[in-house]
Structures are given as C-alpha cells and as structure tokens.
C-alpha cells in the first residue's frame, strides 16, 4: 500500500513537471494571433515578422515581454525602440552583446559615461569607415556554431 502511495506521489510530480515543460514549449510555438494582449503590446515592433521567427527566437522575445512590466517607463521606451534591431541580430551577435553587457555593468560610472560618449562619437563616423573597422577586427568569440 505504501509503495502504491509513493508511486502515486511520483506520478503526480512527474505529471506537473511535464505540464510545465509542455506549457513553455507551447508558448514558444504561439503565432502572433495567439499571444496575449500585453505580449502583443510589448512585442509590437515585431508584429510583421513574428510568425517567421523560429521557436527559440520567440522564446527569447517572450522573456523580454515577461520582464517588461517590471521596468520603469523610461526603460520600457528604450526596449520598444531597440527591439526590432535586436530581433534582427544573429544569435552570435546577441551572445556577444550579452557578454559585453555583463562587462559594461561591472565598470565604474565614469567609465560607463566615457563609453557612452565614445559610442556617440563612433556613430558620427562615416559608414564606410565603420565597415572597414569591422572588417579589420578579429572575431571576439570564435564559436561560429552560434550563427
């Protein structure tokens, strides 16, 4: 009788875990029309291309939509503005960006300010010069499998 009870408990636990995993998998397969109103509002810049995104791309975007309400209105504005460019970056570029972002967060405030200023200056360079700089730069992370 005890074995039956123990088996029943494990079965229930496994069932709930499977339901959770299945729910997450289903969410990543949702079409634009299947998203909730709040998700659509956040991910609006991606409306036209959402159905062409692959499940893992959608999953990452849905994570952004999930964290969006926890941010200040100013930060929410930045997210909406940058979302389209972010979705068009390759996985490799995104992974690079995540690592660089972690390094940036660890910098002191004066260094952060300096980098922001430098980025503005870099943006003022002609596109041809920036392309040349990119072409001459070696890959920071050699893991091409991320592409």
């Amino acid at each position: 009788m005890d074995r039956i009870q123990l088996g029943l408990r494990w079965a229930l636990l496994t069932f709930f875990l499977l339901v959770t995993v299945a729910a997450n998998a289903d969410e990543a397969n949702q079409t634009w029309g299947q998203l909730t109103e709040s998700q659509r509002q956040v991910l609006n810049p991606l409306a036209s291309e959402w159905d062409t995104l692959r499940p893992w791309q959608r999953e990452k975007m849905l994570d952004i939509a999930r964290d969006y309400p926890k941010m200040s209105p100013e930060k929410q504005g930045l997210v909406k503005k940058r979302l389209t460019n972010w979705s068009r970056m390759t996985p490799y570029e995104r992974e690079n960006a995540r690592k660089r972002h972690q390094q940036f967060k660890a910098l002191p405030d004066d260094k952060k300010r300096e980098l922001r200023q430098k980025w503005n200056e870099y943006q003022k360079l002609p596109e041809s010069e920036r392309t040349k700089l990119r072409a001459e730069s070696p890959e920071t992370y050699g893991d091409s499998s991320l592409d």
Partner: protein
Amino acid sequence: MNMHKDNMTNGKNTNLIDDNVISDPVMEQQIAHGISDLLKNRAQHLSPEQEQRLSAARNAAVSYLVEQQAQYNTGNQIAGNGHVLRWFDHLGQNFEQHRVASAALLVVVMLLTFFALQQFGTTHNLENSDAFLLASDLPPEAYADKGFDAWIESN
C-alpha cells in the same frame, strides 16, 4: 472494617460485634488492641509448624506487595514516556487514516516549492535578462559591434 458481623474465635468463645459498635472509632481501637493482645498471648504458645506457616504467609504477602509496587512504578514510567510515543502513534494513525489528504498536502507543498524556486530564479536572473540589456545605457548594437571595440582601442 466493613463487616456486618465479625466472628472472633477465641478458643471456644465467639464474640459478635455489630455494625454500630465497629463504626465507633474508640471502640474500634479497643477491639484492635484486644485482637493484638490475644495474638500476642497466643503467639507465645505457637507450635513450630504454625510459626513456619505464619512466616511463609508473611513472606508471600511481602513478596506480593513488592511485586505490586514494582508493577505500579514501571507502569508510571511507561505512561510518562508514552505521551511522546502515543503522540507519534496518533500522528501516524492520522496519516494512515487520511491517505488522500496527506498525498494532496505533499503535492501542494511540492508545487509551492517549485513555484517559489522558479520565482527566485526569475528574480535572480532579472538583471541578466535580454530586456535589461535592451534598456541598458548603450544600445545592443554597441555591445555587438566589433568595429566599435577596434575604434576604442585605436583611440
């Protein structure tokens, strides 16, 4: 001494004592003294066989009393420890009686733990999520642009 009639055999004499007499404490005490004196007088003239039987009866009575006392003490000790044992036993019986309820309770606890851990993980990873990268001081292109890195190094 709760007796209607007490036949006190004193040799060939038989004294009858009624309830009214024996319920009087003074009289009762006098009777007890009388019995005691009679026993003392007669004890002087006991045969060895009677002495042996009396001694054996006394030993048996004392042994019985010691045994009763020991059982009483052990019983008290068990009863003292028994509170805890009975409590566990009671708890076990309750779980046994409410199998479904205890299984449901276990599942609820597991689910709450699961969601609490998930919530903790979400909070912990919040600052590392892509949403916060997008809201960062620099746009994501700045982090991914290797030309920007090269330009900073050359400047």
